[in-house]
């Protein structure tokens, strides 16, 4: 059990360092990506997906993963997240890395993300009927 914490700590620190060095925590750079004024981050993202695809094909051959299927929340959820990402310049990973970089206002973003993640299951039970997709991790 301890070792799963150590492994999570190691991969999280490396992810945080890499994410910061890529520039995904810089509102200006992220805004350039979304307004198509710069393609560096977009290429970074697409290249990362392509290399990961090759990696999974080689390393995970014959292994089964939990399927992420399309459900009624896929598109509306994506729309909410996309609006939030454009306004804050941060995805859930980026907001935390921004705090570490000293951009302390990102603490408010993290507070909002935590609040939304906490409140959503309650709202879901009250208003929606489709089953909540189990998380992969």
């Amino acid at each position, binding site marked *: 059990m301890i070792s799963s914490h150590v492994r999570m*700590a*190691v*991969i*999280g*620190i*490396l*992810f945080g*360092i*890499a*994410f*910061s*060095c890529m*520039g995904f925590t810089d*509102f200006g750079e992220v*805004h350039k990506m*979304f307004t198509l004024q710069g393609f*560096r981050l977009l290429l970074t*993202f697409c290249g*990362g*997906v*392509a*290399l*990961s695809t090759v990696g999974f094909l080689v390393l995970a051959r014959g*292994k089964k993963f939990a399927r*992420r*299927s*399309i459900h009624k929340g*896929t598109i509306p*959820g*994506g*729309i*909410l*997240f*996309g*609006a939030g990402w454009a*306004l*804050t310049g941060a*995805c*859930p*990973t980026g907001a*935390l890395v*921004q705090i*570490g970089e*000293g951009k*302390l*206002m990102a603490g408010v*973003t*993290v507070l*909002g*993300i935590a*609040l939304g*993640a*906490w409140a*959503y*299951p309650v*709202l879901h039970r009250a208003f929606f009927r489709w089953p909540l*997709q189990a*998380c*992969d*991790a």
Partner: protein
Amino acid sequence: MSEWLTNWPWWAGSIGFAAIVLGYWKLMGSPLGASSSYARVMDAARDTETAAREVALADPKALEASLRAATEAEFGGEAVPGADAPSSGEPAGTARLLPWTAHLTFLVALVVGGFIATILRHGGHVATADLGPKFAGFFGHGVGAAAVLLGAGTLIGMGTRMGGGCSSGHGLSGCARFQPGSLVGTAAFFGTAVVVSLLLERFG
């Protein structure tokens, strides 16, 4: 100061992303997904009883002991076959559920990673209140900017739970495995972010 630690060229960033996606999967046995870590931690905050049980059950020895005790209590000691047999271990490719505290560790480690990157880049660390000139140009520095971050952060938290993933879970590890929900989800959040950013540029 250290320019090689700032705005990596796209190919270097791509290698970094793939290394993290594949490294996380190999190390943890489940696909990367930051929003699911938030979800697990916040669920634990809401339901502390389940969270405590989850931490106990994450330890295989504790799980085995509790199952054995429950079986013995129900059927007597002879009903526990192969009690001394060596454990066969986990079946290949089966991901054991990580305790919520491991997910909290991951989230805190991301903050530490950002801190280390800044130290390496600048040879020191300076905290700044705002998110840079572009953000301040749109929203200013004060209470209004904080309100935007809180509201938009809430959209991120709710949207990623509703959609079942974020930029890492859907965008990176999901798209790389051609998961239908991830491909559609990524198109939805990326498309919306483009529209909102263009609106900001036009009217912000």
